[in-house]
């Protein structure tokens, strides 16, 4: 848990005092990722760096797991907070092993223990220990270096991590991969994380909560979904973008709105049966054909079923696409647009059909939040 209480930073400049962070109060619950988001110069980085005193607060307090850090020794405080920066900052004179064990060594761990830890960490970030531990940072790619940067921050297993645009300097393809890996790691590690970003998409993807900053003030602090449905003011709205409703597609998994009711036929059914099923289920165009393992095998269209006689196995078209239960709605919508269809079969881990997802279900799910909000507003207006 990280709690900030009226944290303030005033910089004295030749042009007078500049308030970089103005009475920031917020709390990140244990095990959550909080994204500090905002345009440059909004105070998000200053706020982050006051937590480990890279920037010394002018006033206010920082609590970590309920303890006031004000009286703590700076070095001890920092050794108990993982710190990842955009420029990575691996020490070029040290091997990868020396880099990732630097905090344990500062803490005085014995050799056997920190060497063992180095191997554990490498396994965690999916880099082969024997291939990498003895190499130097300059021999690694940018993405590999940032993985090492994350491993270094995790080395002494700190409960709290601060990350300052950690994936900002990595190319988009690798960035997405590292983000996914990091989220997977976080599921197991449950660190309490403050994460600075200026990328709204990254914030939505990574954050359990998002804090929007503007000119040194915390404007809005909410879950991504609440933020996107109910931006507090015009600034937040414009920062989130005109397409903010679409961004919510990223937040919802197929699992949440899948309908397990799906009519299907097998290859040995007749087209007559297929037509009957299409009518029974009220489908307008076609019905899914599954094989004996219940995997999607094809589509039998209504027009074929009506005008032709025979078996489904001889008169089907290929399945345009299927989505997995853990895919997000953004992928679903994209596939629907690409194939000009309004529904898609959903499959589980074994590739077996377990339901369907329709365009209507998507719009209805996304819309429910807005409807609930309008209703609440209407009630509030009456009172």
């Amino acid at each position, binding site marked *: 848990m990280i709690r900030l209480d009226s944290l303030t930073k005033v910089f004295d400049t030749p042009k007078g005092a500049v308030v970089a962070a103005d009475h920031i109060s917020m709390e990140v619950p244990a095990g959550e990722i909080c994204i500090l988001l905002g345009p440059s110069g909004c105070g998000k980085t200053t706020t982050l760096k006051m937590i480990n005193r890279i920037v010394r607060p002018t006033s206010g307090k920082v609590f970590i797991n309920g303890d006031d850090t004000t009286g703590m020794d700076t070095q001890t405080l920092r050794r108990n907070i993982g710190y990842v920066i955009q420029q990575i*900052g691996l020490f070029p004179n040290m091997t990868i092993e020396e880099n990732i064990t630097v905090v344990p060594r500062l803490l005085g761990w014995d050799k056997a223990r920190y060497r063992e830890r180095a191997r554990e960490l490498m396994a965690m970030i999916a880099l082969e220990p024997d291939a990498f531990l003895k190499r130097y940072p300059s021999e690694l790619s940018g993405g590999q270096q940032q993985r090492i940067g994350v491993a270094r921050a995790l080395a002494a297993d700190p409960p709290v991590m601060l990350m300052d645009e950690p994936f900002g300097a990595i190319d988009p393809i690798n960035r997405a991969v590292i983000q996914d890996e990091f989220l997977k790691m976080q599921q197991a590690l449950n660190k309490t994380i403050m994460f600075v970003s200026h990328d709204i998409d990254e914030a939505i993807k990574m954050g359990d909560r998002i804090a929007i900053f503007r000119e040194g003030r915390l404007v809005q602090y909410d879950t991504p979904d609440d933020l996107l449905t109910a931006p507090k003011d015009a600034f937040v709205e414009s920062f989130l973008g005109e397409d903010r409703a679409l961004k919510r597609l990223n937040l919802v998994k197929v699992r949440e709105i899948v309908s397990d009711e799906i009519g299907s036929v097998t290859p040995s059914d007749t087209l007559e049966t297929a037509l009957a099923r299409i009518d029974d289920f009220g489908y307008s165009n076609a019905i899914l054909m599954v094989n004996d393992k219940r995997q999607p095998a094809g589509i039998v269209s209504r027009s074929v079923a009506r005008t032709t006689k025979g078996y489904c196995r001889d008169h089907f078209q290929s399945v345009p696409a299927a989505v997995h239960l853990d895919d997000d709605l953004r992928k679903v919508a994209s596939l629907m647009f690409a194939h000009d269809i309004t529904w898609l079969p959903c499959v589980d881990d074994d590739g077996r059909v377990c339901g369907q997802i329709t365009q209507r279900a998507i719009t209805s799910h996304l819309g429910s939040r807005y409807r609930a909000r309008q209703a609440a507003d209407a009630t509030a207006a009456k009172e």
Partner: protein
Amino acid sequence: MELIQYAFDNIDLLASRTLEHIALVGVAVGLATLTGVPIGIAITRNERLARSVLYAASIIITIPSIALFGIMIPILSLIGHGIGYVPAVIAVLLYSQLPIIRNTYTAINNVNPALREAARGIGMSPNQRLRMVEIPLAVPVIMAGVRTAVVLNIGVMAIAAYIGAGGLGTFISRGISQSDPRQLIVGAVAVSLLAIIVDYSLLALQKRLTPKGMERAASTA
């Protein structure tokens, strides 16, 4: 031919003078490194102090060596060392300050700010930062300063022969006073060769001392 013959005939003397020369410069630059590196590190903490120290060191290096020896004679005579070994070593010590202090200061100051922030952020104390990160990264540039000091002062030390410090300069001073071009040229060539050989040896040492992971970066610099 005559020169080579002379050099061979006096090979023992030449060797002992060369060793004497190396010992003088070695002791003086060694002491200068022991003072210059800590001074160079210390002044990175205070910019105004850094400016004054570097300014003072620059002034010292502009004093002609003959003049410096002249100044030291009456001062050091007070402790009975007006000429000879002591003033020679002191002169070289002073001349070495600028290259060593300046290179140390620049090298430490130029350590990538991101590395410094990373070092602070993971909880290194200022001394740990110096020992584990800043000094290892600064070693190549500091060594380059030491090399400059050594090469510069192999020349200065040749002049110290005039105040009786010994070394290869003795050949030159005798060559001039005895109008013997053989001694003069052998002395001059020996000083030049020594400077070149020592410079390359120190370059090799510098490469050995450069942290392994930085070799690629250092070779392109």
